[in-house]
């Protein structure tokens, strides 16, 4: 398969993830949609690594996975803290920092 097909799949997944981040209100699902966007970027990186026959893109993809794992741990920690404070788990309700 040509590299262009992989890039097309990557673009579609990225846009689905962006739509999810903008539409959904549960922070858990917003984190999941962020994962979708990071994975789409990973797919593009690995497709370009294959295109050039160079493994630097794969190294970059693994670093992106590390960063995604960090983001997930901190995000889930915040959700648990929100739950402990008996606050609503809904990004529309959590607007104390709203200017």
């Amino acid at each position, binding site marked *: *398969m*040509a*590299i*262009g*097909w*992989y*890039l*097309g*799949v990557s*673009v*579609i*997944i*990225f*846009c*689905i993830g*962006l*739509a*999810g981040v*903008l*539409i*959904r*209100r*549960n922070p*858990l*699902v917003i984190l*999941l*949609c962020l994962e*979708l966007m990071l*994975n789409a970027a*990973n*797919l593009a990186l*690995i497709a370009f690594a*294959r295109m*050039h*026959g*160079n*493994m*630097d893109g*794969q*190294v970059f993809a*693994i670093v992106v*996975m*590390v960063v*995604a*794992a*960090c*983001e*997930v*741990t*901190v995000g*889930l*920690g915040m*959700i*648990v*803290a929100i739950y*402990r404070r*008996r606050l609503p*788990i*809904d990004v*529309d309700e959590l607007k104390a920092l709203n200017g």
Partner: protein
Amino acid sequence: MAPVFFFICGIGAIGGAIGVVVLKHPLYSVLSLVFHLLCLAGLFLLLRAEFVAAAQVVVYAGAVMVLYVFVVAYVGGQAEPVGNAGGPGGPAVRALTLGVVTLLLIELLIATLGSGLSAIGEEGAPYTAGFGSPAKLGELFLTDFLLAFEVASFLLLIAAVGAVVLARRRGGVGDPDAEGRISVAQLLSPEGLGTMAESVSGRSGLKDEVR
């Protein structure tokens, strides 16, 4: 054979991604994301990134998703109406969002597929032995990308400490609003008076309160 495998994995990955956004209950979204990640690992295999595919399955679809499932089970994910039912904005904001996303999709497709890179329409560079193997990847990590490797490990450490600090249980099992507040009477009264409050809380007085 490769095109068939590509279309199975590609359609699975896109379907899983749509499922994450569309399904109402967070637990089903997590399971849909696991399916999406497995299909994506298949695509990585087609691109000859064997080690990244294995790491994707083990780390992402295994460990990170288990973390998600635990948090959903703990928080008790409430089913939420997709789209803004009762939130600010409502259907107008949702339509605007979908319009923006569609425009971005078209623009990105033009930018990637119409970029005029001649290599985009080809299969990729000729395969060399060991491409995508753990040995080559480890060698790169320990030579060319040593700084990125060390920074990533440090970042993981900071994230672990941060998660513990964020999710830690503060104080005792009490009313979370009252916790951390000290009344004037507590400051004035000497420690160990044997009041009802001290006996209930199991603490002996002012010093524990302040601490």
